């Protein structure tokens, strides 16, 4: 019973504060129907449902295959039409209130079902289900699918709140905070102006870290934050830290999750620069490649520092947030090769709406 009520809540958004829904396009209780990952999930779920339906209707394995074929003959055209229509109406659906959007989608699906049934009437006369039954199954299936996406979005969204907590507790290492304050203190007497700038940067950095980071931000803002962060680290580490930015081809208006790069740079400094007296280079490349944004971070890899738990936590959190915002269309990969550690991020080029 509890599961059922959770489901109905999930579908009708009973416990959901409505105001927050339309403020951000991603994430949403409705999936982004133009996302490849979402499409794939839809197709797999529908195939799963048809197999289940065929199993219920059939007496033995051979019969089940026949049943499945005849159900698929109806469901596959439905899926293709649905993907097409939902993809086209995606932006519009996301601007509707959630319950209204659910109602519209259910109506559209029932419409498509009737269309398909009527169009194939002549082909499948004997086995064709009546309109009432088709309508009923379509409503149930549509609600189940929407409930799944709703729940998935809720399961993943703690990652957003955690991002904030972890940033404060672990990712922005206390080590960095206290060392930075210490470095600023050292400047107060000799170079008051540099101390001022450094404190302002520190304040900006912590403002972002403590903010509610649910909404995507333009890439240029994240890059600016990284500049401020690296400025603070340069204050401490001096010549030992060298940074190479290759961002000429950067799509400044691409939307990315906030704190996508900064935690990675922090790991790069902590594991790649600090353990050595010799200067080390952190290389950052960002460019767009048709409809994708590519980011590549490289830093020297020192085997001695084996305390990688902080690194793993940051990577796991970024992966979760990427998957929440972009599903299967975004990826984060790491590798070590000839003394370098590399993080490569690929995500869809979602432009800022102006």
């Amino acid at each position, binding site marked *: 019973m509890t599961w059922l009520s959770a489901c109905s809540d999930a579908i009708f958004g009973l416990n959901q504060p409505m105001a927050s829904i339309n403020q951000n396009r991603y994430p949403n209780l409705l999936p982004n129907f133009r996302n490849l990952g979402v499409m794939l999930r839809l197709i797999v779920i529908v195939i799963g449902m048809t197999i289940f339906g065929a199993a219920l209707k059939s007496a033995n394995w051979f019969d089940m295959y026949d049943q499945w074929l005849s159900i698929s003959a109806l469901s596959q055209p439905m899926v293709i039409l649905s993907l097409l229509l939902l993809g086209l109406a995606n932006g519009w659906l996301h601007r509707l209130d959630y319950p209204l959007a659910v109602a519209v989608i259910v109506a559209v699906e029932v419409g498509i079902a009737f269309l398909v049934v009527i169009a194939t009437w002549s082909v499948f006369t004997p086995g064709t289900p009546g309109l009432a039954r088709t309508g009923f199954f379509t409503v149930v299936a549509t609600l189940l699918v929407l409930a799944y996406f709703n729940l998935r979005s809720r399961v993943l969204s703690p990652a957003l709140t955690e991002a904030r907590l972890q940033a404060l507790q672990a990712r922005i*290492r*206390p*080590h960095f*905070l*206290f*060392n930075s*304050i*210490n*470095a600023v*203190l*050292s*400047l107060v*007497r*000799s170079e008051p102006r540099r101390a001022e700038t450094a404190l302002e940067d520190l304040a900006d950095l912590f403002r972002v870290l403590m903010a509610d980071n649910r909404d995507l931000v333009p890439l240029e803002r994240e890059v600016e934050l990284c500049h401020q962060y690296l400025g603070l680290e340069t*204050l*401490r*580490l*001096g010549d030992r830290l060298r940074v190479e930015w290759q961002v000429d081809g950067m799509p400044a208006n691409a939307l990315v999750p906030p704190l996508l790069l900064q935690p990675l740079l922090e790991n790069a400094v902590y594991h790649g620069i*600090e*353990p*050595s*007296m010799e200067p080390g280079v952190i290389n950052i490349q960002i460019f767009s490649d048709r409809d994708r944004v590519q980011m590549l971070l490289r830093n020297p890899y020192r085997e*001695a520092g084996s305390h990688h738990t902080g690194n793993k936590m940051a990577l796991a959190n970024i992966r979760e947030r990427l998957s929440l915002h972009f599903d299967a269309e975004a990826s984060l990969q790491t590798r070590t090769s000839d003394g370098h550690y590399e993080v490569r991020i690929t995500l869809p080029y979602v432009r800022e709406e102006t």
Partner: protein
Amino acid sequence: MSKHPQSLRVVITDDEAPARSRIKDLLEDCAGSFPLELAGEAASGRELLALLEETPADVVLLDIRMPEMDGIEVAQHLLKLPEPPSVIFTTAYNDHALKAFELHAVDYLLKPIRLRRLHDALTRVRAITPLRLDVLQQITPDARTHLSVQERGKVVLIPVPEILYLRAELKYVTIRTVVREYLLEEPLSKLEQEFADQFVRIHRSCLVAKAQITGFEKEGGDGGEARWLVTLAGLDEKLPVSRRQQHIVKELGRTVL
């Protein structure tokens, strides 16, 4: 001796220049209320040891997290000096070491350092109990990055990756690098434990660096008296593997070569 025999000679060791300059400011503030002088600054443990050869000091303010060699290891090497200075550790954040410090009454200061704390620590520095090697070793479970030996009042550092083998003879352990030998006063069994990842025992009295092994040769033969010899990179000498340790030829033959 120093110009002011009673004044406290302080050396700052920190890899971050701003951190050193901050402590320098604070030391100047302290100097108003009691006699002290800045004997020098070092950016690493190696620099500190080199500095202390020329300039004796009473107290070292020693950062814990430094590249190459952390502060706790540096303190272990300092103990080989004829007159080791007192050590006050400085750290921005390092909870596990701090607990150990409390436990063993080791002196430390948290960065950013407050003038009063520094002042208090320096005033009682002559009274604090000197650091003990076993305490420091307990605090860091990690293997050292360098071994150190005392030669004519100086501490010589030998990077562990440069060591070919360690051989126990009578009172000492001989450290062999490609260049030369050093005499170390530490038990071989303890070294074997500490460097278990990097060294392998080939004989009752000999540990060999796994990374330096270039091959195994069989000596003698027909009479059943055959034995294995280890060849090492850059060394003509070949070291015998004892009968009891022969299994390592098989094990390492697969992984190392």
